[in-house]
C-alpha cells in the first residue's frame, strides 16, 4: 500500500485538465441530449415535404433581447405563430441601430422547453453569422425554421428567444 508523492501529484494535474475538459464535454452532452436550449441546423434540401403533420399545431413564440453595451433595438415582427410540425416557416426580426458608428453583434438562441430544442431546426438564421449594422441602420432579418414532426406530442408551445450580444465596433 506504499505510495509515492509524485504519483499522487499526478492526480491534481489530471484533475486540473479535467476541469477544462468539462467545457467540451458539456457541449457534447448538450448536443447529444438537446439540453440547454441549443437549437439544431439543417439544410433546406433535407426537408421532406411529405412529413408535414397537419393534424397538430404548435404555438411558437418569439422573444428578442439585446445585452448591455449594444445600442440596438431588436424585436420580432410577429410575436407568435401557429405551426404544423414538418413544415417550413419564416419569421422576421427587425433590428435598428441607434449608434452612429458601425456596430457588430451576435445573436444567441435559446429554446424553452429545453427538450424541444433538438426538434427546432433552422435552415436560415441571422444567428449563423455576426451581424454588422452601419450607423442608424434598420434591417429586417429572416429566420427559416421547421419543427421536426417527431417532436413529443406533449409539447404544445415552444418559446424561441434570441439575445444579441455586442462584439464591439466594426
Amino acid at each position: 500500500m506504499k505510495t509515492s508523492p509524485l504519483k499522487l501529484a499526478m492526480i491534481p494535474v489530471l484533475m486540473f485538465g479535467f476541469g477544462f475538459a468539462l467545457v467540451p464535454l458539456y457541449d457534447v452532452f448538450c448536443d447529444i441530449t438537446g439540453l440547454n436550449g441549443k437549437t439544431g441546423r439543417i439544410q433546406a434540401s433535407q426537408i421532406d415535404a411529405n412529413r408535414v403533420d397537419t393534424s397538430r399545431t404548435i404555438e411558437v413564440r418569439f422573444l428578442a433581447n439585446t445585452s448591455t453595451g449594444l445600442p440596438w433595438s431588436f424585436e420580432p415582427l410577429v410575436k407568435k405563430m401557429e405551426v404544423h410540425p414538418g413544415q417550413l416557416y419564416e419569421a422576421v426580426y427587425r433590428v435598428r441601430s441607434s449608434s452612429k458608428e458601425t456596430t457588430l453583434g451576435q445573436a444567441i438562441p435559446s429554446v424553452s422547453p429545453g427538450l424541444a430544442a433538438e426538434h427546432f431546426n433552422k435552415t436560415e438564421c441571422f444567428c449563423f453569422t455576426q451581424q454588422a449594422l452601419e450607423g442608424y441602420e434598420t434591417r429586417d432579418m429572416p429566420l427559416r425554421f421547421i419543427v421536426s414532426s417527431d417532436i413529443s406530442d406533449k409539447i404544445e408551445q415552444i418559446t424561441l428567444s434570441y439575445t444579441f450580444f455586442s462584439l464591439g465596433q466594426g
Partner: protein
Amino acid sequence: MSSEITHDAAHDEHDHHGPAKGLMRWVTTTNHKDIGTLYLWLSFIMLLYGGSMAMIIRLELFQPGLQWVEPHFFNQMTTMHGLVMVFGAIMPAFVGLANWLVPMMIGAPDMALPRLNNWSFWLLPFAFGILASTTFMESGAPAFGWTFYAPLSTTYAPDSTDFFIFAVHLMGISSVMGSINIIATILNMRAPGMTLMKMPLFVWTWLITAYLLIAVMPVLAGAVTMMLTDRHFGTSFFDAAGGGDPVMFQHIFWFFGHPEVYIMILPAFGIISAIIPTFARKPLFGYSSMVYATASIAILSFMVWAHHMFTVGMPVAGELYFMYATILISIPTGVKVFNWVTTMWKGSMTFETPMLWALGFIVMFTIGGFSGLMLGVAPVDTQYHDTYFVVAHFHYVLVTGALYSIIAAFYYWVPKWTGHMYNETLGKIHFWWSTIAVNVLFFPQHFLGLAGMPRRIPDYSLQFAEFNMISSIGGFAFGLAQVFFLYIVIKTIRGGEKATDRVWEGATGLEFEQLPSPPPYHSFTEAPPVR
C-alpha cells in the same frame, strides 16, 4: 565507518531535541506539531475575522431598512464571510488537527514531507492577506457571493477579482500539497502492525478527505483560471456572446463545491468517532461500517453536484436523477449517526466538555442533515432555493457540525498537546452559551426562509422583522462566546491543572496510550508497539 556516521547522526539529533528559539522557529519549522499549531491559530484568527463580518451582516439585518452599511458593502461582507469561513477557518483547522494528530495516531515520527508541510502552511497567510486586502481597494472586495457565479464574477466583477483569483490559486496549491502529504504519511509511515483497518477513524476520514481534496481543488483552480482568461484574455468560457455558457460555470463550480462540503464534514465524523467511545467507555460500534460509509459518501459526493442548481432550468430527468442520488447520501450518513447513538447505548457516559460538544454535534448536525434532505427534494427546492432556509441549513451543518467538531477536538486533545487541563467550568459555560446562542441565531432562519426571505439581500419586508432581530441577538451572543473561547484557549496554553498521560479514563489510541502529555517535540522516533 558506518557506525561512525550513525553515531554522528544520533549525536546531532541529541543537540536538537527541542524547538529552535525565537520567531524564526515558526517560519522555518518542519515539525508537524508546530505546523499543526500554526494552522490552528490561523484558523482561529480567520474564524474571528470571518465572524466579525458576520456581525456586520447581522447588524444590518437587525432591523428592516438600510441603517449601517451600503448594499454593495453588504454584498462584500456576505462574499468575504463565506470565503474566509470555508477556506480560512474550517479547512485549515482540519488540516491543523491532521498535522497534530495523524503522525501521533499512526505512530509516525512526523509527516512524510516536512518541508512541503511548511510551505503548505506558509502559503495561506499570504493567500488570506491578499484576499483581505481587497476590502481596502477602490473597487471594494469581491461582492458576488462565495460561489462567484459568472457573469457576476466575470463581466460585472470589480477589479479586485483578480486578487481573489490569485488568492484562491494559492489556497488550492496549499490544500493540494497538504493533502498529498497527508496521504503519503498515512499510506507510508504507519507503525508496524497498524493495518489500514486498525487506524483510528480520524485518520481514515482524513485519508478519504485528502483524496477528495486532490481531486476537486484543481477543478476549482480550473474554474478561476477560466474566469481570469474570460476577464482579460478574450476567452468566452462563461460568456454567451462568444459561444460560452454561464450555466456551465455553475456545473464546474459545484463539481468542486459538492465534494468540498464533504471535505468540511468527513474529518468531523472522524473526531466525533474518537470522542463518543471515550466518554461512553465503549469501543466504537460498527468500525468497518463507518469506514465504508465514509468512502461511500466520498464517492457519491461526485455525482450529486447539480442539486445546487435545480432552478437553472434542468430537464425533469436530470432533476430526478440528482434528487435520488442526493437522497441516497442520507443512507451512509444515517449509518454514522446510528453508529454513534449505538456506541452510547448502555455505555457509562460522562459529560465532560468534549463530550458535550460532540453530543451537540450529533443533534444539531442531524437537524442540518434533515433540512438538507428537504432541500434535496427538487420540487420543494424550487421554493426554498436561495432563501434563508438554505442559510439555516448550511450553517447547521457547518457551524454546529464542522465548527462544533473542531471545538470538541480542541477540548479533547488540548490536554494532550499542552499537558494542561482546560478549566472544566469555563468549557461547559462555553458550550451552553454557544449552543443556546447558535440556535437562537440559526433556528429562526428556517422560518424566515420558508416564509420567503431571500438570502444575500441587505433589506427585507416588515413581516420578517421579529425573527431577524431574534437571529441577530443570537448572532451577537454566539460571536461573543467565541471571544470567550479565545480566552479559554490562551488560559489553557499558559497553565492549568496537569493532565495525565491518558488524559481521559476511556481514551484509546497511540497518542494517549504511548505518549506523555505534553508529547516530546519529536515523538515516535522509534515505532511504537501496536496491539
